[in-house]
């Protein structure tokens, strides 16, 4: 039930990423809502969910990512896991640490893609990647509380039923 909502949101964000975000580009860099959503979701929900959302969003992003399938899936899997581990050690109600860690994790992703691309004889623009990380954190700042509420509503329902 809940997974279905998450999957729907992910697909919607993917479409927004490809069709809407490029028009909000600043200096050629635009945010990736899907990845940010995956990070927030994993910070809030812990490791098991992180593996699921990381893999799923990675596969979605890979569909439109040139002819290399699997890069995003692999990187998202590990980075969402990292986000979940960070999430275990913080107060999840406060958004400061999640926002800051999202910047660092995004930059990590840029470097990871850069390294894999270099190995395959291609290259990417790191500077734009870092700009997008900063840009995305703005969306994280405003969106985190909504995602937190969305996830916790579900928990409350379950608690109420079984107590």
């Amino acid at each position: 039930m809940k997974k279905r909502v998450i999957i729907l949101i992910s697909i919607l964000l993917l479409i927004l990423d490809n069709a809407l975000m490029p028009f909000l580009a600043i200096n050629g860099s635009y945010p990736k809502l899907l990845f940010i959503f995956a990070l927030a979701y994993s910070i809030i929900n812990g490791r098991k969910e992180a593996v699921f959302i990381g893999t799923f969003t990675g596969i979605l992003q890979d569909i439109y990512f040139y002819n290399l399938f699997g890069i995003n899936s692999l990187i998202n899997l590990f980075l969402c896991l990292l986000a979940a581990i960070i999430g275990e050690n913080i107060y999840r109600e406060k958004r400061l640490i999640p926002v800051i860690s999202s910047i660092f994790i995004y930059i990590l992703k840029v470097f990871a893609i850069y390294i894999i691309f270099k190995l395959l004889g291609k290259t990417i623009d790191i500077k734009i990647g870092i700009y997008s990380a900063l840009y995305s954190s703005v969306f994280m700042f405003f969106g985190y509380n909504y995602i937190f509420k969305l996830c916790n509503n579900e928990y409350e329902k379950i608690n109420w039923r079984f107590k």
Partner: protein
Amino acid sequence: MKFFKNKLAVTIIVLSVTFLGLIIYTSNSSQKDAASSGVATLTNPLQKVLHNMNNRLKTTVDFFLNFSEVKEENKKLTKENIDLKNKLIEYNKLKEENDRLREILNFSNSKNKYDYIGSEIIGYSGESFSKGYIIDKGEKDGLAKDMAVISNKGLVGKITSVGTNWAIVESLISENISVAVMVESTRETTGILSGYKNYNSENLAVVTNLPINSEIKEGDVILTSGLGQIYPKEIRIGEVISVETDEVKVMKKAIVRPYVDFNKLEEIFAVVPKETRDIKYEN
């Protein structure tokens, strides 16, 4: 063996090995696999609607913000139009003459070797690190990997992967694409063009590997040379805006501003050779 009892760890390891395998497997293949092609077929129509809506909004806002410029441009274009019309009359006369002469000589017409398939851009690809476009024509319409893509202004790039009814185009300002080029004024064909960014992060291109004694200068036009048979011959790419001499490598380097404005692309044409099955452009 406590480690293997941890279900999560096993899942992660299995998944990562699978993805690694996929990366290596797909790094050489030209086609999008069936699954991703299918998902994209579902999401593409929605994407197309949204993209077109935004594009219209952008052009409208652009129009009002730059109204005075638009007016000026209009004046300039009207003038140019009159000029061109005059030239067209001349051209038609010459063409008729040329056709007649061709018939006499039984010349084959080289420019008729290609079909031009028009397609619309429906989204952006490449996670904003490197520029690519998603277009709404694919394998079904006869496109294949490595075909050249042009717009009315000049070369855009080439197709790097195809699905059934969509394809991904990587533009020439991406650093992953190199084009064999020719300088129009000097007819030197050694140049290699690839993406480049200056300090203002403008999207430019750079031509390397020009001979040190080359007489290339600012304002020269850069064309594709057709070497390597990846791009058709003599498609316009851009104009030289500065020339540098590299003393270490003993060659000249030219910065080129492409004619195509990659932020304002809407419609593009894939160049499909009529006869050859593997994509090679005869020049």
